[in-house]
């Protein structure tokens, strides 16, 4: 699916990413976790072909990602950015429809409207569709963009990939779970997701693989059970923690302090 080999990303002489290798198979939900400034967002940007620095060796579907045609690539992958624009003087439905821009020329077709409506229902923003985007709260705006990014990949192509950079910011508990369930449902259809998360317990519950980062390097990689050990976590975050079994779903549960 996507395979990145020894990525180095520098700002001046400082190595934001230092020899990071990632590989992801279809149907996998990869959560990237780590403390602030560990390089999580930078890794996501580099993987998504957003920033280009020197020759990076990133293979997406067995082809260098930088060699893909931009339009074609937009049907195979989409990205949810951490800093979404606050000021978009359009209605909510117009913003979600942007996700369908790669599919139509001038006027949206029937199936574009269907894809848009479907995602607005799933993210629970359908009742907001005629509101001005600028009047929404932070959490509602996040859901609009989630809807847009997921509507972009509503097509018949196999093995798509979605990048999400902290999609749960500002969301309440219910919508955090809803968002993660949408992503998990997407990965169950033989697609993949790479998601930057801050909540380790949610990561343990939803992700198939965890990539723990610290100062631009991979500190640990593997299944949640393997990565979430007291030693790994307290070392990466520089903060004491205890791990126990989640009483309901038997995943590892991390308690800090």
């Amino acid at each position, binding site marked *: 699916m996507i395979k990145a080999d020894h990525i180095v990303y520098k700002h001046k002489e400082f190595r934001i990413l230092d020899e990071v290798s990632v590989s992801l198979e279809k149907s996998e939900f990869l959560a990237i976790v780590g403390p602030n400034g560990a390089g999580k967002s930078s890794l996501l*940007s580099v993987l*998504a072909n*957003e920033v280009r620095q020197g020759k990076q060796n990133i293979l997406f579907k067995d082809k260098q990602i930088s060699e893909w045609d*931009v*339009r*074609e*690539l*937009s*049907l195979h*992958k*989409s*990205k949810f*950015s951490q*800093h*979404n*624009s606050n*000021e*978009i*003087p*359009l*209605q909510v439905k*117009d913003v979600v429809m*942007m*996700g369908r*821009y*790669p599919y139509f*020329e*001038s006027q949206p077709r029937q199936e574009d409207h269907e894809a848009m409506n479907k995602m607005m229902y799933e993210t629970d923003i359908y009742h907001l569709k005629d509101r*001005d985007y600028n009047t929404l709260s932070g959490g509602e705006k996040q859901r609009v963009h989630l809807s847009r990014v997921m509507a*972009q990949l509503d097509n018949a192509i196999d093995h798509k990939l979605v990048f999400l950079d902290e999609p749960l910011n500002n969301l309440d508990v219910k919508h955090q779970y809803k968002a993660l369930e949408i992503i998990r449902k997407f990965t169950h259809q033989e697609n993949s997701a790479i998601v930057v998360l801050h909540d380790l317990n949610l990561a343990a519950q939803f992700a198939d693989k965890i990539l723990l980062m610290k100062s631009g390097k991979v500190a640990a990689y593997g299944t949640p059970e393997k990565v979430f050990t007291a030693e790994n976590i307290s070392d990466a975050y520089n903060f004491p923690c205890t791990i126990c079994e989640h009483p309901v779903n038997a995943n590892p549960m991390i308690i800090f302090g």
Partner: protein
Amino acid sequence: MLILLAIVALYVGVYDFNGTSPFTILGQLIQGDPDLALSDKYVIWDVRAARIIMAILIGSMLAVSGTGLQGLFKNPLATGDLIGLTSGATLLAAIAIVLGGHFREFLPEAVQFSLVGISAFIGALVAMLLVYRISTSSGKTNVVMMLLSGVAITAIGFSITGFLIYISKDEQLRDLTFWNMGSLAAATWTKNIVLTVVLIISYIILLPKGKALNAMMLGEKDAQHLGINVERLKKQIVVIVALMIGTCVAFSGTIGFVGLIVPYILRLLFKSNYSFILPLSAIFGSILLLAADTISRSIVAPSELPIGILTALMGGPIFIAILIKFKKSL
């Protein structure tokens, strides 16, 4: 509405056709009626109709260039005259007139036209690149920097144009004054053909870009994720807008504020959805400029008011309205 206005504009004018309607004359003209008086024919066809068509073409291009710039800079204050493109174009056009005047007699008419036109295009393009470099870093435009660099370019243009006026000969002086005032009075069919060609080329490239300009509101990186080639889009807009503004300046001088007024009104109706406002500004720009031109040549008849006065009268308050609305975010 545009057609209706064009018909009205054909009627309005100082010249008296001895009671017959301008339409009968236009009809006679099209049928090639030999009885038609030469002066009637001249007024209707070479003066009035040519001027109406020119107002339609110039108004349309000015409005579309304004809307395109606003999409590129993501700000409703970006227009050719406010950020100095018009000044850049005027400056180089003025240089071409004064310096070109020295070897004018050696050049055929077409080359003379295109000399001023090409200079104006280069002037607009250079000003555009300058403003863009100064005001935009990593995909974000600083609005204050954008407007101030416009002020700076306008100041430079103003001083050099002033100097050129000082050293120029009488005939050139008349041309230069015309440039600074802005007028559609010099309309001819040759000019209209050139304008039409520029308009068609520009619109084929620019008008389908509505979706892409909408996506740019998400930010350049996210637009790229939607399959839009952002670098190519920016280059296309820069060149096409400079081409349109340069051509308009070369043929009609500086007519201000059309690129500000039209998108502002359309935004009130359609939000900022460029899929609608980009093509619609092509039509509303024509309506606005044709209406303004018709008023300007009839309100103080038999004399004529410079059209820039009317557009500035409308544009000024709208400029202030936008400033008040964006007081917090500037």
